[in-house]
C-alpha cells in the first residue's frame, strides 16, 4: 500500500486545565466517565490510529459527543493533541511553526463546516474566493476559478448575492465551492450535510460523489448518519466515546461487526441497498450452471429487482465484461439478515 495522505498515530486529547497531568491517569487506565468525575477533565480522544489514503473518502462516524469534530480539527491543527502524532504526507505537522502551519492550511487542506461559516458581509463570489484572497493572489486569476466552481456546484448567477439571501442547501454549495477553489488536495468536511433537509442532503451527497470521481481528493467526511456514511465511505471509522471501535471497508464492517455497539448500530439499515455483489460473491465454480448474469458493483437491491425475487439458483458475476465470480441467491438472502456477532 502507498504511503497514506494523513496518518494519525496514538493520538490522545484531554480537555481541561491540566491535560498533561490527566494523561497519567488515562495511561493508568482511567476511562472517560471516571476521569470527568475524578478531576473534571474531558477525555476527548483516546489512542486514535487512523490512516487516510490519497483519493479516498474516509468517513468518521459516531454519535454526537463521540469526538468526531475534535478529531477532524487535529488534521489541520485547529486543535493540538495532548499526545500523539499527526503526519501529513509523512511530515510531522506538530513540529510546524505558525508560518508552516498557515502555509499548510492555505495550500494543502480546505474545510467545509456544518453551519456553513460563510462571511456574511461578502458576496457569494468573494466567499468562494476566500482561499486565494487569503493567499494574496490576484483578482484576475482567482475570479474565473471561483466562478468555475460556483457553476460546477450549480450556483451560476448567484455570484453577487449575499449569503443571507441563500437557502441552507445553497449556502453549503458555496461552502463546497469555497473549499474546491482553494485547490487543496485534502478536504475536511465536518457534518457538512447534517444541517440540511433530507432531500437536499441526498442531492449534496450525489454532488460530492460526482465531483470526487473527477477530482480524486482525499476527503475526510464527518457524519452521525450511518446511511450517509455507507453511501460515501471508501474507508469507515466508527468512533464511540473518543475511541475507534472499528474501522475498515464499510461493506466489511457491515458483514463482520466486531463489537455489540456496531451490531446495534447497523441493525436498522437497509442492507439490500448498501451491500454490493462484490462483498458476498464466491469464486467461480465451472461446474455450476448459471441462471443469469449480474454486475459486481450492483447492490443487492438491484440484483433482487433484476432476478424478479428468485431465491434459488446461482448467477454469474461480471465486471467490465469479464466473469469474476458467482453468487448463490441463498447467500444473498442470508446476507440480508444481520448476523449475531460470532462468539455469542
Amino acid at each position: 500500500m502507498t504511503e497514506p495522505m494523513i496518518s494519525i498515530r496514538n493520538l490522545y486529547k484531554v480537555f481541561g486545565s491540566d491535560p498533561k497531568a490527566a494523561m497519567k491517569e488515562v495511561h493508568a487506565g482511567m476511562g472517560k466517565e471516571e476521569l470527568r468525575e475524578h478531576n473534571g477533565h474531558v477525555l476527548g480522544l483516546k489512542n486514535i490510529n487512523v490512516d487516510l489514503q490519497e483519493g479516498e473518502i474516509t468517513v468518521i462516524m459516531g454519535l454526537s459527543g463521540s469526538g468526531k469534530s475534535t478529531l477532524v480539527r487535529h488534521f489541520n491543527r485547529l486543535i493540538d493533541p495532548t499526545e500523539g502524532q499527526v503526519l501529513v504526507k509523512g511530515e510531522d505537522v506538530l513540529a510546524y511553526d505558525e508560518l508552516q502551519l498557515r502555509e499548510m492550511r492555505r495550500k494543502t487542506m480546505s474545510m467545509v463546516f456544518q453551519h456553513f461559516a460563510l462571511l456574511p458581509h461578502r458576496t457569494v463570489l468573494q466567499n468562494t474566493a476566500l482561499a486565494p484572497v487569503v493567499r494574496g493572489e490576484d483578482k484576475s486569476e482567482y475570479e474565473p476559478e471561483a466562478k468555475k466552481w460556483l457553476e460546477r456546484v450549480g450556483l451560476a448567477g448567484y455570484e453577487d448575492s449575499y449569503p443571507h439571501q441563500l437557502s441552507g442547501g445553497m449556502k453549503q454549495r458555496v461552502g463546497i465551492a469555497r473549499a474546491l477553489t482553494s485547490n487543496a488536495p485534502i478536504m475536511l468536511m465536518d457534518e457538512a450535510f447534517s444541517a440540511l433537509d433530507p432531500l437536499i442532503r441526498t442531492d449534496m451527497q450525489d454532488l460530492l460523489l460526482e465531483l470526487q470521481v473527477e477530482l480524486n481528493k482525499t476527503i475526510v467526511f464527518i457524519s452521525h448518519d450511518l446511511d450517509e456514511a455507507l453511501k460515501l465511505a471508501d474507508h469507515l471509522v466508527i468512533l464511540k466515546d473518543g475511541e475507534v471501535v472499528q474501522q475498515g471497508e464499510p461493506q466489511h464492517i457491515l458483514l463482520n461487526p466486531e463489537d455489540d455497539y456496531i451490531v446495534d448500530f447497523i441493525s436498522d439499515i437497509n442492507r439490500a441497498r448498501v451491500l454490493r455483489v462484490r462483498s458476498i460473491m464466491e469464486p467461480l465454480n465451472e461446474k455450476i450452471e448459471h441462471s443469469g448474469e449480474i454486475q459486481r458493483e450492483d447492490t443487492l437491491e438491484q440484483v433482487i429487482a433484476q432476478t424478479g425475487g428468485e431465491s434459488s439458483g446461482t448467477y454469474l458475476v461480471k465486471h467490465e465484461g469479464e466473469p469474476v465470480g458467482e453468487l448463490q441467491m441463498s447467500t444473498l438472502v442470508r446476507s440480508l439478515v444481520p448476523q449475531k456477532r460470532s462468539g455469542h
Partner: protein
Amino acid sequence: MASYDFLFNSTGLEGWCDTEQSSAPTSMADLMAAAQGTEVEITAWDFPFPSLDALNESCGKIPETRDLTKGLEDGFLAMKDSLRFVLDPITEPLSWMLDGALYLAEVTPWWIVIPLLLLITRMISKSWSLTIGVGASIVGLAFIDHYSYAIQTLSIIFVCAAICVLLGVPIGIAMSRSDRLQRAIIPVLDMLQTLPTFVYLIPLIFLFSVTESKLYGIAIILYAIVPVVRLTDLGIRMVDKDVLEAAQAFGMTPRQKLYQVQIPLALPNIMAGINQTIMMSLAMVVIASLVSAPGLGVLVLRGIRSLELGVGLVAGLGIVILAIILDRVTKAALARVNASQH
C-alpha cells in the same frame, strides 16, 4: 464639654489630646450655651455619630473633615504642575482641532456649509427623505438666527466624536483580545459612565485654564468614549465562532482575521456604539458651556442665568432638533450595515 470626652478620659489619652485643644467653641449649640452661660445637656436622643468633627471637639489631635478635603486639594495642587507638564503637550492638539473646527465653521459661508452637511447626510444615510428632513431642520434653525450656534455645537461634536472613535475602537479591540485588560478597563468605564457629569469638570478646571478649549474637549471625550469602547469590545467578542474558525482553517493571519472578519462582523455593534457616543457628546457639549464651550448650550445657560425663558426654550428646542438629526443619520447608516449582513 463635648460628647466624646469620656472616651479620651477613660483611655488616658486626654494628656495627648490636651496639648492643642482648641478653646474656641465650635458648634452652634456650644455658642448658644456659652451665651446663656450653661452647659449643653446631651441626651441619648441627640448623641452625635463619632465622626471626625465630633471627635475633634473632644480631642484636638484628631483632624476635622475639612482637613481631609483640604489635604486632597493640597495633594492635587502639589501634583498639578507635574501632571500638567505631561498632560498639557499631549492634549494640546485637541485645542488646535477644536479651535480649528470652530474657526472653519465661522469663516465658511452658510451657502457652502449647509449643502456640504446635506451631502454628508446623503452619503451616510443613502436616504433622500432623511436628507430633506435634515435640510429643513438646519434651514429652520438658521431662519431664527441660531445657525452659528448650531454649527458651533456640531463642530465640537464632530471633533470630539471622531477622537472618541479613533481612541475607543482600538481600546475596544485590545479589550476583546485580553480578558485581563477587559477586567482592568471595565471598572474605569463604569466610573466614567456613572460619575455625574459635573464631577468631571472639577479636576479639569484645576488642571487647565477655563479659556482653553481642550478643557471642555476632554470632558466631552471622557464622557462620550464609553459606549464606543464597550460596544467594540462586545461586538468583537460576539463574532460567530464558526466564522472565525473558518478564517483560521483557511490560513488567515491574525491581522487578516481582524480586518477581514472581526471588525466587519462587529461593525453593527461598533456603529451602535458610535451612535451613542455622538448622542452623549451632544449631551455633554451643553453642560460644557459652563466651562466656556460655545454653541447652543451658551444660550441655554443664558436662559437659566438671566431667566430669559424664551431664549432658553428655543435653544433647548434647537438641541432637540440636532439630537434627532444626529440620531437618525447614524441609525440609518447602522441599518444599512445590518441589512447587508442579515
